């Protein structure tokens, strides 16, 4: 009886110290998408997701915030404002994953019948008191884009419908010189980079006609890593007595049990 009680007590204590606990099942989390309208000759549009209107009167050269969207495959349609989902000029199906962030860009020219949607997977993790920058080249026919600061190229040769890798930049005011090749056209972009944020520079428009090429900036909160909020359930060197006490307890319990068993035999 006493032995079983002691064993039960020991197990209870070990469970408490090892922190074993029931964990609620992970519930479904959404993905997050933001939409960029970068089709120069398509006016203001309505955006439909899986047949339902997601955005009304979405203007050219606009960028939404990140919007939650259930993980899975989705069908997006873009139609001129007020025309309805059945008059869509762009239709695209794409998958999104739980917890991930995406940029969905409406690209191309209606006049050349090459409208499309491009899906970029984003990474908004920011490791510390800094800022991340990424360039998205969404300007049809504009060649490649170099990004420089203080005469130093920091992002090389991004082609149309491509996004750069992320670069880490100290927080503060910056002027990026965007050079379009081979035309060798330079466009300065001034931006204030807040710490712990991710800044996107979207090249939108047309290099040699209207609407003119410009850089649209969007800033999103940076995401840190998860904290370490647990501690060792076993006392460390600051409490060496705990190890000794546990050992003494177990020794006493086992010794008593053996002694009783030998005596009764």
């Amino acid at each position, binding site marked *: 009886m006493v032995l079983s009680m002691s064993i039960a007590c020991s197990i209870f204590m070990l469970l408490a110290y*090892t922190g074993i606990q029931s964990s609620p099942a992970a519930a479904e989390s959404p993905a997050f998408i933001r939409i960029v309208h970068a089709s120069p000759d398509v006016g203001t549009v309505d955006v439909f997701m899986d047949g339902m209107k997601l955005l009304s009167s979405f203007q050219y050269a606009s960028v939404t915030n990140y919007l939650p969207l259930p993980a899975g495959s989705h069908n997006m349609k873009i139609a001129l404002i007020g025309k309805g989902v059945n008059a869509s000029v762009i239709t695209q199906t794409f998958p999104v994953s739980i917890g991930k962030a995406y940029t969905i860009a409406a690209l191309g020219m209606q006049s050349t019948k090459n409208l499309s949607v491009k899906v970029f997977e984003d990474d908004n993790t920011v490791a510390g008191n800094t800022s991340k920058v990424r360039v998205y080249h969404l300007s049809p026919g504009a060649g490649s884009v170099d990004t420089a600061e203080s005469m130093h190229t920091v992002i090389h040769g991004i082609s149309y419908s491509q996004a750069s890798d992320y670069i880490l930049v100290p927080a503060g005011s910056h002027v990026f010189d965007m050079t379009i090749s081979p035309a060798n056209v330079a466009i300065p972009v001034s931006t204030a980079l807040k710490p712990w944020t991710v800044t996107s520079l979207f090249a939108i428009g047309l290099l040699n006609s209207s609407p003119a090429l410009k850089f649209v900036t969007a800033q999103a909160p940076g995401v840190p890593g998860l904290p370490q909020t647990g501690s060792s359930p076993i006392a460390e060197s600051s409490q060496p007595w705990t190890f000794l006490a546990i050992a003494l307890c177990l020794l006493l319990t086992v010794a008593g049990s053996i002694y009783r068993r030998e005596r009764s035999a």
Partner: protein
Amino acid sequence: MLLLRHLSNKEERMGSSFQSAGVCLLGCLFLLPLLIGNGAGTPPTSAETTSMQKPATLPSMQRTTPLEAEVKAEIPLRLMIPSIQVDAPIETVTTTAEGNLATPIQHPWDDAGWYSPGTLPGQMGSAVIDGHLNRPGGAPAVFWNLKQLRIGDAVLVFTSTGITHHFHITRVAAYQPQDAPMEEIFGNTNGRYLNLITCAGVWVASQGQTTQRLIVFATFDS
């Protein structure tokens, strides 16, 4: 014969005594950290009792002068979760050298930590507050009972400007760190959210962390 029987009984009692002593000590060892610790699973200290009785007065108590209060920006000062008896000061935290959300420094086991580069509780976006699950040795820390929370439970944040923000819990979920919905936890700007984080799962000594993180998602009420 009587003497032998007496000795035998005495020896048996000695064996029982050893066991009893072991059991008692085991019990004490288990209970001691709980008694020493003033986490959510223990009776509150006198300071906690006072604060729990008068939560609404605490933010104003922290102000030294009206002038000083006026020049300070709003920050969250105290977290209260009545259903699990959490009533904890809030420290301002940023990130560690590794880029992870930092934890409270002044009172690591009793305070909660608000991620100050992120959203203020009550504003549009995802405010995040973390807290330790346990202390070294296993005794409960401030968020020990977070796993007991249920959908609909209230969470209150008292701010430096005397405002109390009310939230209710919408989801409680545990994730492997690599599978956690980070964008939802930190980056959802489509509403006013408060997300609480602590550890869950099993301690892995070789990694110096537990296997999971418990995320409590809450939505702003008023």
